[in-house]
């Protein structure tokens, strides 16, 4: 009798383990960034690009804001740039750009060539300050509300779908 129970228990254990493996196959093992959604952003300090020795901090966020990490050497950043321009033109969302590990001259040329959608631009030369946002590559874009709570995070260049999502969030 106990032999039978043992037999079924053992088979049940194997069945359980194999089921977990089956389910796991469906998941994408690539790193999806931490759910920062709902958290308040930590206070940050970036020097402004305009060279006046002024700083950008989280006091500059007083309404729904997009924070976009970009660089002139980043090819996907060029692909998403048009969506940022569109957002600037069609909505009243505030857009902050953080120029990541870039050269100031190249950054200025980039903006001249592709237009400037940013209300404010901060500079991060070594990437250390950006770690407060959980950045691990660029481009990455955050939407935060006036209370500085993160509403959504986009990893990689924004596409049409993301653009629509951002519009929806702004309109709420």
């Amino acid at each position, binding site marked *: 009798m106990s032999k039978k129970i043992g037999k079924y228990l053992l088979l049940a254990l194997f069945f359980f383990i194999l089921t977990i493996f089956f389910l796991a196959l469906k998941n994408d093992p690539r790193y999806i960034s931490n759910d920062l959604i709902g958290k308040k952003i930590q206070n940050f300090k970036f020097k402004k690009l305009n060279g006046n020795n002024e700083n950008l901090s989280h006091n500059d966020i007083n309404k729904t804001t997009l924070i976009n990490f970009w660089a002139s050497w980043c090819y996907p950043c060029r692909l998403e740039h048009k969506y940022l321009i569109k957002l600037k033109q069609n909505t009243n969302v505030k857009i902050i750009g953080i120029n990541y590990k870039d050269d100031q001259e190249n950054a200025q040329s980039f903006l001249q060539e592709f237009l400037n959608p940013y209300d404010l631009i901060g500079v991060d030369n070594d990437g*250390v300050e950006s770690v*407060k946002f959980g950045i691990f590559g660029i481009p990455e874009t955050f939407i935060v509300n006036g209370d500085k709570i993160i509403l959504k995070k986009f990893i990689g260049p924004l596409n049409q779908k993301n653009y629509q999502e951002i519009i929806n969030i702004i309109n709420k």
Partner: protein
Amino acid sequence: MKKIFFIYLFFSLNSLTVQANEMSDLEQKIFKNIRCLVCQGQSVADSNSEFSQTIKLVVKDQIGKGRSETEIYDFLVDKYGEWIIYDPLFSTSNFLLWFLPYFILLVGGLFIFFILKKKNNN
């Protein structure tokens, strides 16, 4: 008796060889415990990626500000998730992880104990 004395002597002499913590410096220890998120299975210490270089700067920065090892890990976990740290933190969800191997050791030991017990009872 003499032999036991010598053993005792050696053991106490050996206490000279002991120090509390491992010799590696704190920086390297932390670097080795952080996963490089853009690499396939490498720590920040071992990787040459940009991400690793940035994280190394962040850690050096925080050590300089006097943060403790745990505080630094907490900070990184807050931003990047538990996945970034190689040492699985001991918590309720990880309890099984730390418990199961010793459980296996115990079960194995009991098994052998019962096998041996049989003979010596006969």
